């Protein structure tokens, strides 16, 4: 009894620490300490669990902890910030694996369902359903982002019909199980089908939409662990799961909104498709390309520069060169700010992390609403591997797939320098008039290389 109390106490503490930890993320100053406390809470909860009276042997546990740490440590220490999207996808997968396996073990333990009461079966069912679906779904997302699988949407005739059928059968099995928890065959069949569903849900979605999908999977993973909590009557699991679920859901909403697209549109990929073929209707138009020298001169004498980073900066891993250049400009007395679009890059807050990594203070990173009014009065807008988030078509061209997506008003700056490798489009796969505007000059080449040239030149200037 007292032992149970101790364990429960650690769980309670963990729950509180987790909530306070997330709360601390509302302010950058408090964030780090808050999450460290959350880690302590986790430690407590695990330590408490080791006292659990059901535990008879420890070697498998220790082995698991050892192996897990051996894999987790390098993932935590050395995964580059640019690989965060994949990393997040992967860890949703691990979370789902844990939840699902616990569910299956529980079911198997209880005489393959023979001694499972109905409410418990309900919980277990949800657990393994969401779990299994998230395992394969996240894996596919990971594979696409990592390039193991082609990022382009993979579709085949009658796909939706197939998925619909698959889904119906799975739900049917679930209902059957709640009525007769002993039907082991149904249980394992359901798990396998859920695994298939996970794959077929993500296959038809374009690589660049993965972040939205990932966040959705995050909330599924959360629901899965909440379900685990219900199944084994553990509150800290329920709470952590709910927090996860909320976070994933909110982030995916944020993203879809910033892309001015609906979930449905994302999940049943209206775009990231054919158009993705490449630029169109740009033939007639002129493009002013500029040399590093000339660009450097402009920057050297600019009073105010707004840097607009995009996915390209992440690909090129050019954040440190950005900082270097900015420092030079500031030495020359110019002011440098950074315009961060909510969905610049490939995940929410992507650009912020990269620039923070380059040791750029976060109070120079401006959100869209804040910085947009400042473009007209800025001498040079330096667009580094950003494309869709600065595409004026979103304001003007009703026919454009990104119409009504809020964008950074770069085209209103006195002059614009765009760093990218070619005229090829961004993730939305559409032409960008900005690159043809006469106050825009293109500096072609890999962002990192170009920035290094610029740094050299500005030093001369």
């Amino acid at each position, binding site marked *: 009894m007292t032992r149970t109390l101790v364990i429960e106490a650690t769980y309670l503490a963990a729950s509180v620490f987790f909530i306070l930890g997330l709360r601390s993320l509302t302010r950058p100053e408090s964030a780090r300490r808050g999450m460290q406390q959350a880690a302590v809470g986790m430690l407590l909860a695990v330590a408490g669990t080791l006292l659990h009276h059901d535990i008879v042997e420890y070697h498998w*546990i220790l082995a698991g902890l050892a192996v*897990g*740490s051996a894999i987790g440590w390098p993932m*935590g220490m050395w995964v580059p910030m640019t690989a965060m999207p994949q990393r997040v996808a992967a*860890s949703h997968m691990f979370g789902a694996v844990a939840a699902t396996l616990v569910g299956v073990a529980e079911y198997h333990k209880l005489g393959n369902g023979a001694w499972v009461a109905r409410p418990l079966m309900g919980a277990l069912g949800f657990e393994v359903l969401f779990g299994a679906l998230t395992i394969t779904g996240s894996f596919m997302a990971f594979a696409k982002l990592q390039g193991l699988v082609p990022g382009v949407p993979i579709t085949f005739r009658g796909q939706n019909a197939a998925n619909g059928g698959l889904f119906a059968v799975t739900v049917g099995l679930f209902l059957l199980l709640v009525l007769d928890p002993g039907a082991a065959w149904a249980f394992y069949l359901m798990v396998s089908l859920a695994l298939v569903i996970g794959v077929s849900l993500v296959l038809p979605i374009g690589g660049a939409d993965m972040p939205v999908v990932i966040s959705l999977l995050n909330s599924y993973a959360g629901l899965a662990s909440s379900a685990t909590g219900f199944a084994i*009557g553990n509150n800290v699991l*329920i709470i952590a799961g709910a927090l996860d679920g909320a976070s994933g859901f909110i982030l995916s909403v944020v993203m879809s909104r910033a892309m001015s697209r609906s979930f449905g549109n994302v999940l049943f990929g209206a775009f990231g498709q054919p158009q993705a073929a490449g630029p169109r209707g740009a033939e007639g138009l002129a493009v002013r390309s500029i040399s590093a020298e000339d660009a450097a001169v402009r920057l050297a004498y600019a009073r105010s520069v707004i840097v607009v980073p995009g996915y390209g900066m992440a690909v090129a891993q050019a954040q440190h060169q950005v900082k270097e250049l900015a420092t030079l400009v500031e030495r020359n007395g110019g002011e440098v700010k950074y315009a961060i679009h909510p969905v610049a890059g490939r995940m929410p*807050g992507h650009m912020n992390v990269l620039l923070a990594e380059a040791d*750029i203070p976060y109070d120079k990173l401006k959100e869209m609403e804040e910085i947009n009014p400042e473009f007209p009065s800025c001498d040079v807008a330096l667009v580094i591997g950003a494309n869709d988030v600065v595409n004026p078509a979103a304001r003007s061209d009703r026919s454009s797939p990104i119409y009504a997506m809020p964008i950074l008003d770069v085209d209103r700056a006195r002059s614009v320098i765009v760093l990218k490798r070619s005229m090829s489009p961004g993730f939305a796969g559409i032409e960008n008039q900005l690159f043809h505007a006469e106050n825009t000059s293109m500096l072609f080449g890999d962002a990192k290389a170009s920035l290094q040239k610029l740094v050299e030149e500005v030093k001369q200037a």
Partner: protein
Amino acid sequence: MHQAALQLVEIYVFLLAGFVGFLVITRVPPLLHTPLMSATNAISGISLVGSVVAAGAGHSSVTTFLGFLAVVAATINVVGGFLITDRMLKMFRRAGPPGARGEAAKGEDR
């Protein structure tokens, strides 16, 4: 009845936690959305408490093995998640007093 009564209460726990999550996370600034993602990953590792019991209860070789795998997976999230979150948050710094722009930054350049 016991089981049922408990599950009823746990519905409250779930809903309330959901509210808390919603209220807290809607206030996280875009600046920290990526750390937020890895933070929730780390926290999701709490399923470790379930896995550990499964791995240690020694009901059958099957459940033990499944439990072992679960422990591995969950541990990866815990360790990896908290480490990378801390790595990220360590990087965020502000330039001296708010408002102080280029100047402060210059001052701090190493």
